[in-house]
């Protein structure tokens, strides 16, 4: 039985970005593979490139995912210090962020380094939950919501909405091409 909850800061555009970057989430047998595809796995997990190109980390993909998913999610899951109130989590992923940041600071990392690391862990938690939803499993980080939604009955068969296909790029035929030397 699939159980999914409302996630503040994660819109349908966020899921579009996930699908746009990774394709069908059902093709990934476990969330670690999805994390790796999105550039969220530890750097050591990626193979080294040829010669001096370094590790083959999909940094552009990681950057897009951070910009489109992690930033809005952070804004909706974490409340900074204001009016004398200490910074605190306002959602389940904010709790993940807080725990990861505290752990990072305790291990001697700088404030900025701990923040970036904690954001990545928060994003990984969200991606894991999206993977779970796609596979019809209970969410790992949204436990209360999972229990509430347990009675939900959802069709596992998709009905496609009426959306027109984008125009494909016209590919010129070989006969129509003119080469520089053929003039």
């Amino acid at each position, binding site marked *: 039985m*699939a*159980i*999914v*909850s*409302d*996630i503040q800061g994660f*819109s*349908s*555009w966020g*899921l*579009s*970005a996930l*699908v*746009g*970057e990774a*394709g*069908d*989430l*059902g093709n990934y047998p476990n969330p670690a593979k999805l994390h790796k595809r999105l550039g969220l796995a530890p750097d050591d997990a990626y193979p080294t490139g040829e010669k001096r190109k370094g590790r083959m980390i999909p940094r552009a993909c990681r950057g*897009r995912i951070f910009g489109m998913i992690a930033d809005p999610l952070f804004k909706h899951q974490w409340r900074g210090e204001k009016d004398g109130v200490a910074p605190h989590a306002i959602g389940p992923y904010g709790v993940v962020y807080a725990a990861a940041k505290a752990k990072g600071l305790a291990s001697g990392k700088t404030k900025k380094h701990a923040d970036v690391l904690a954001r990545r862990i928060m994003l990984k938690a969200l991606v894991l939950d*999206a993977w779970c*939803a*796609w*596979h*019809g*499993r209970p969410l790992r980080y949204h436990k*209360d*919501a999972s229990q*509430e*939604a347990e009675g*939900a009955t*959802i*069709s*596992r*068969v*998709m*009905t*496609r*909405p009426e*959306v*027109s*296909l*984008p125009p494909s790029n016209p590919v010129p035929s070989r006969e129509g091409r003119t080469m520089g030397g053929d003039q």
Partner: protein
Amino acid sequence: MSAPILVDQETISTIRLYYRQAKAAELMRMRMEQGLVSYARVYLTNWNPTADIKTRKAESLKALKTIKCLITGKGEPDEAIADIMRSFVSDLLPAWSAADSRRKRARRQAELLVEALPAWQLFQTFRASPVGG
């Protein structure tokens, strides 16, 4: 282990296509904006690579705000910069608007398709319940 929810592969490809189109259109729009801001900053403000960071940031912000005002028509632009940049912006505005509307259209189409996915429908199920809000 539960099997993944079956999703039409054509839908996935279409979502990816619209996503790529939206990102490409966004990139074009951003390039235009950055080009305008860059010109205004370098030639029409006191920005200088050797200046201290505070000055550079202030001048950069001035250029950015002016271009933003000229494009959106909201706010108070810096008149000295705006006088020169107005013609630049008006020449580029049709292309900027086309890229922006293309981005919005592609994004909306991708969102429509994603909202029909079973995974997203489960999100909506809980969103509708009073506990989820």
